[in-house]
């Protein structure tokens, strides 16, 4: 089923611009968007990394080539930081999510502070000066329990290549290329589809510094940490600024079933 959905996704992306509207909000069309940002809810961190502070600008560029040769290009940025205690902060523009763009007038920015030392995660909306806090428990290193399963096409051949080591922005990074091959006919495709992902991972910082994903079905994505600094970030970055109206978030809701 996922494969069918994957195939219709490109068509759906184009078609989404034709869909409209909720009361008082205009989706699609000139000046419209694909979604309206409501608020940031919370942050999730898959590992706690103490003793490796850094700050950087995370830049993601998504490019999709339409059948007519036109391109859809979206760029999104985030300020990211981690201190020596393993606390993280992500200050992100939500103007776009991949190929999707937000409607004008919604929250354009969201901040998530993840503090495993204090056991709390904050989600902040700088525009309205509101936010929520939630108790968290860091997951043991290497634990896969509870991780979101990946949507993996059945019978997809996966090939992994070691790209060696190179220095990116003064940081040593290990490269890996993963190629997923969708055989002809597997998703209704006539020819073989190769989905290639290259990642450059810093063992010191324990983060991906650069990555590139080429998926002929959806487009090409590049991600890079720019302006990397290993200096200790300002501790104020990991606290809720004064003037925010905060409320405590109790728990997660059960997942909703597809309809």
């Amino acid at each position: 089923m996922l494969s069918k959905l994957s195939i219709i996704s490109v068509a759906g992306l184009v078609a989404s611009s034709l869909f409209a509207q909720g009361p008082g909000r205009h989706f699609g069309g000139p000046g419209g968007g694909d979604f309206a940002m409501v608020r940031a809810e919370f942050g999730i961190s898959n590992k706690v990394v103490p003793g490796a502070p850094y700050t950087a600008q995370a830049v993601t560029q998504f490019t999709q080539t339409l059948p007519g040769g036109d391109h859809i290009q979206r760029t999104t940025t985030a300020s990211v930081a981690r201190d020596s205690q393993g606390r993280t902060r992500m200050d992100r523009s939500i103007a776009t999510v991949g190929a999707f763009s937000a409607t004008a007038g919604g929250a354009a920015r969201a901040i998530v502070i993840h503090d495993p030392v204090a056991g709390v995660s904050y989600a902040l909306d700088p525009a309205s000066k509101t936010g929520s806090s939630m108790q968290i428990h860091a997951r043991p290193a290497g634990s896969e329990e509870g991780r979101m399963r990946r949507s993996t096409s059945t019978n997809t051949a996966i090939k992994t290549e070691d790209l060696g080591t190179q220095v990116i922005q003064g940081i040593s990074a290990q490269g890996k290329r993963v190629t997923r091959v969708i055989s002809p006919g597997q998703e209704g495709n006539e020819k073989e589809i190769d989905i290639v992902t290259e990642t450059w991972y810093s063992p010191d910082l324990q983060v991906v510094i650069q990555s590139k994903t080429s998926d002929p079905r959806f487009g090409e994505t590049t991600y890079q940490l720019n302006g990397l600094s290993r200096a200790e970030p300002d501790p104020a970055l990991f606290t809720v600024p004064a003037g925010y109206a905060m409320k405590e978030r109790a728990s997660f809701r059960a997942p909703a079933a597809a309809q």
Partner: protein
Amino acid sequence: MQDNLEILEDLRALAADGPQAAPDRVGRQLLGEFRARRRRQRARLWTSMSGAAAIAAGIVLLLWVRELPKPAAPVPAEIEAEAEASFYPLPQAEALPEVENAMVVRVQLPVSSLRSMGFPMDEERTDEVQAELLLGQDGLARGVRLVQ
């Protein structure tokens, strides 16, 4: 009075015979008692010294432990695990790098946009829904779930 004089005479006679030694049996008993007493004294001394050393070691250990950095990673992860596992994985995220840090945002969007993302929705529906997107460190959606 007469008895006293007789006793005195006997004592003088005894003294005149020269110094008298205690019997061997009494000597051995005295020596044994003396050695036992020394052992008890040594035992008490060692006990006191061991106690003092243990207290000193405890103080040193306490001071050392207080200087150690606090462990930064408390354990189990029911909440976060539950959160991440509750998202429907998107086909578009299949080949993206693993999530390191994620942000969950609530959005409102037409059902058609959800379908475009690969979330299975009834083809007949054209309304809007609220959903939560799980965004990876690159800002790309890895998963989605509907808000009830």
